[in-house]
């Protein structure tokens, strides 16, 4: 009887859409079981939570720099002249029930979102999942990484607090440092000389809640469609070949598990938002371009850019009535272009150098591709040194070091450590390979079986 009821319900839909066949086929779609395949989903679920919490926040937020006297229930700032934007964020934090919770979930989710994308990209890189035919999705994913950083920065800038205003001031200077067109770009984006007449908040708001999320949504759609169509990669193993996918069916096993992950992310964010305070703008105070507090740090995904600015030697050139400040333009424009540019071209470069034009569905082990792995590790080390340099005031302060010596050491490290880590990783990979061969020979000699490259045990002979 129960099945009859299911059929009636399904028929209501099917009589209009003719979907029994596709639903049957897709419900049996196979997903590999390896944990590292969850990282992309983690980013996806953070995005969903960001959209929901962000929409809620937008009900209360005013993107305006009009000065108002704050009248809410946070006493230390009572009657202080602040912008409407700042005042509305205080209102969300102190006078909307659950507003602070949603704000903090939103902020934590943003941090986790960019993080999940980055770790997911590492997984794809080190296992060679970016190779043909999935190079196209590598490009889509990279675009999303860049958009998500921009999206995070735009949102971080909206509350008009002292910390975010300082970030915007630096962003203005970075735009301005671009040769020839810089002043136009900066003045047009801010609607005038810094900080402009409030247009920047109108613009950042629409960019943050509409333009970038829409682009991200479109790219997420494309990313998933492409994964769905090309099917997942998998690690080589028992009965796992280039011609098949082994794992769990989408329905019910995988779907229930994945839904569990969604709730897990939401739960984690809720606990973080209740017990780990983030971005307490009422402590920073409203933005004033003539004021800044010591120890100003951006969110973690901007630290590398901040560090890049901090490590750059004071280079500037003047010629024929023009100035180029390399100390801003190079670390904040050229370095990001090089970093993202090299990530973008890597799959095509590797294909060109190795002449490997084949279609790949099986993943590589990092040790089997020492140059690629070493290149990836060196890039990560470079990124890490820059991020540490983004805290070249707080780290020496915490550990009692000399700030200037620490900075100079990092200036050396940012060049030396990537090279060193390249060499070490490369050798390490080769050593791992050698050890395996040695193990295999030993094992084969004593047991009379051979372990193949993929880990199968087969009788010798």
């Amino acid at each position: 009887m129960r099945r009859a009821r299911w059929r009636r319900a399904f028929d209501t839909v099917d009589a209009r859409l003719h979907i029994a066949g596709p639903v049957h086929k897709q419900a049996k779609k196979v997903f590999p079981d390896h944990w590292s395949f969850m990282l992309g989903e983690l980013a996806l679920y953070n995005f969903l939570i960001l959209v929901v919490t962000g929409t809620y926040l937008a009900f209360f937020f005013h993107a305006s720099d009009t000065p108002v006297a704050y009248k809410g229930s946070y006493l230390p700032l009572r009657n202080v002249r602040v912008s409407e934007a700042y005042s509305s964020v205080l209102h969300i934090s102190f006078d909307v029930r659950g507003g602070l919770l949603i704000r903090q979930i939103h902020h934590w989710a943003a941090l986790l979102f960019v993080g999940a994308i980055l770790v997911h990209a590492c997984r794809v890189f080190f296992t060679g999942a970016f190779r043909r035919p999935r190079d196209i999705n590598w490009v889509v994913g990279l675009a999303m990484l860049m958009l998500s950083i921009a999206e995070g920065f735009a949102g971080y800038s909206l509350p008009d607090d002292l910390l975010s205003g300082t970030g915007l001031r630096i962003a203005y200077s970075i735009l301005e440092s671009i040769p020839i067109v810089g002043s136009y770009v900066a003045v047009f984006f801010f609607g005038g000389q810094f900080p402009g007449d409030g247009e920047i908040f109108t613009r950042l708001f629409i960019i943050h809640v509409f333009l970038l999320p829409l682009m991200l949504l479109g790219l997420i759609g494309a990313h998933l469609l492409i994964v769905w169509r090309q099917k997942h990669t998998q690690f080589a193993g028992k009965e796992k070949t280039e011609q098949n996918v082994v794992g769990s069916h989408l329905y019910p096993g995988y779907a229930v598990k994945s839904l569990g992950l969604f709730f897990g992310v939401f739960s984690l964010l809720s606990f973080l938002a209740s017990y780990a305070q983030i971005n307490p703008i009422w402590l920073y105070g409203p933005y004033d371009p003539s004021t800044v507090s010591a120890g100003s740090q951006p969110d973690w995904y901007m630290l590398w850019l901040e560090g890049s600015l901090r490590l750059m030697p004071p280079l500037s050139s003047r010629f024929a009535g023009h100035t180029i400040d390399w100390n801003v333009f190079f670390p904040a424009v050229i370095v990001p272009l090089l970093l993202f540019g090299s990530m973008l071209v890597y799959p095509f470069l590797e294909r060109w150098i190795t002449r490997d034009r084949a279609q790949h569905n099986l993943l590589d082990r990092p040790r089997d591709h020492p140059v690629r792995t070493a290149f990836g590790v060196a890039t990560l080390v470079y990124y890490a040194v820059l991020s540490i340099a983004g805290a070249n005031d707080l780290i020496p302060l915490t550990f009692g070091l000399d700030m200037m010596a620490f900075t100079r050491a990092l200036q050396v490290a940012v060049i030396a450590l990537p090279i060193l880590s390249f060499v070490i990783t490369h050798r390490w990979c080769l050593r791992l390979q050698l050890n395996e061969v040695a193990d295999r020979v030993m094992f084969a000699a004593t047991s009379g079986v051979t372990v193949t490259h993929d880990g199968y045990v087969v009788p010798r002979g």
Partner: protein
Amino acid sequence: MFLVSAAGTVLFIAAYLFVGRQAQLGLTQNELLGTGLGVAMGGMCVGLVLLAKSAVATHGEEERESHSSPPSEQRQTVGLLSRGIDQLGLRERTFLRRSLIAAVGLLPLPFILGLRDLGPRPRGILRADAWRPELLLIDQTSGQPLHVGDLDIGSITTVMPEGSTDATRPVAAESAVVVIRLPPGVNRPLPGREDWAADDLVAYSKICTHAGCPVGLYEQQTHNLLCPCHQSTFFVPDGCAVIFGPAARPLPQLPIYVDDRGYLRARASFDQPLGPSYWERS
């Protein structure tokens, strides 16, 4: 587990309705609401994962199809698309084809041109500042004109030009200045700047020449001014020369004097654009 989740939801509702907001500025309520939500979501998470684990394990395996279409299909489709161009007659009618391409190429222009009014022309307004000769130095904290006796040796204050004291507005934002009283005999004025200081008081632009942050940290003992954003360090007695960090230029100095009532005034405007550089800066 699902019951735990339901309990979490009930906790959230109870905290929303019955906990006073004023309790420690709403932070306590935040913790209760968040715990409720966290337990509600966490219960669902654990419940669903256990449910998935308890289900009869189904080993799935799918064949892959080739990632590209068979050559015959490719040929057919390419043929169809290319015949379409023929059917439209675009191949032989060169003028039609070229005018079409030209027209399509021009189409985005109105939309790009429309961006022109996003902002004013930068020339002329770039790094305008509000300092003019004779203007009083208004102390930012007190809102009163700075008097020669207001600063002790080794202290620092931020001043704005008289008439443009709201630093959140353009132009005024660029005009923040720090005034420091150095110990007697410490200042070593640069050639041509011998009369820019007044009674051991020196005034320098507060906007860092690197990325535009306010240079706010003054070390009394070393006479260093430090930018907290990127650690550019300026040595005040030597005309705020850069001694460390990414900044490439000294902070511009504002010539000041003490008027007959003892108030500080600007002797002249700044002799250079303030803040970070840009292409048009000579």
